[in-house]
């Protein structure tokens, strides 16, 4: 796999946009590619600080921000926000995850920044 070093996902256990829609497929992809996988539960006091840091620094920040949010840590050390859940409905989030997993990011041809 060229480009991606790890996948990071901000989520909550109760959120249907997160489970099983986003976290599980992203984790499976990380396993398939042999790259790191890190998930941050916003209801876990030990993980929420990192979740907030990722979203505030690189994602779609708001006081009550959307979950899930997916970030790719690239081999050059950069972090890229690549997906936020679709408040419109779980079906759109599911489609977004499926599209992301079929995107150039995961065929070794990450889009230029």
């Amino acid at each position, binding site marked *: 796999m060229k480009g991606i070093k790890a996948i990071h996902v901000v989520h909550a256990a109760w959120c249907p946009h997160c489970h099983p829609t986003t976290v599980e497929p992203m984790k499976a992809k990380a396993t398939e590619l042999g790259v790191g996988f890190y998930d941050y539960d916003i209801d876990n006091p030990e993980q929420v600080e990192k979740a907030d840091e990722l979203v505030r620094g690189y994602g*779609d*920040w*708001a*006081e*009550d*921000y*959307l979950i899930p949010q997916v970030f790719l840590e690239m081999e050059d050390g950069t972090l*890229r*926000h*690549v*997906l*936020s*859940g*679709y*408040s*419109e*409905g779980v*079906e*759109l989030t599911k*489609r*977004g*995850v499926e*599209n*992301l997993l079929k*995107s*150039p*990011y995961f065929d070794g041809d990450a*889009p*230029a*920044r």
Partner: protein
Amino acid sequence: MTVMRLQDNVTEIARSLLATTAKCQHCGGQAAIEYAEGGSVGLHVCPGRYVSRIIMYGNELDTDRFLGYVRGAARGTQGVEAGDVRVASRYAWDLGLARKSNDIVLKEMYWTQNYRRTKSEDPDRMALFFCANGDSFFVQPLKNGERLCDKCRTS
């Protein structure tokens, strides 16, 4: 001119890729998407005309404009605060568009009625509805069944 074309593109993408029904928190039925402001605003509205969600689509985040719009619509309800707004970036790869750039295709700003801070099941709470004639918001107690705004009811 270029800006206009970009905005047109945003509204076209919103209509083609972001239009979906949602479960209404008011009646449990299906809230369909309707549009206002030339398509730059999407509303999830149930057959009873309750507004579950307001979404603004744009090339950039303009939360002041969005807040102004929602506050104007929801005047007389529990109020709208900046912290009630959530935002999202949509990219070519998650929308499934065949573009190879890393550019953000559009931004969405969301306001959801009866969510977190304003969550209330009180049937007397003042709630936001969208007139069945499709051109104006109105506020009435949640338990009321009017589907038309005052102006349309009296005309």
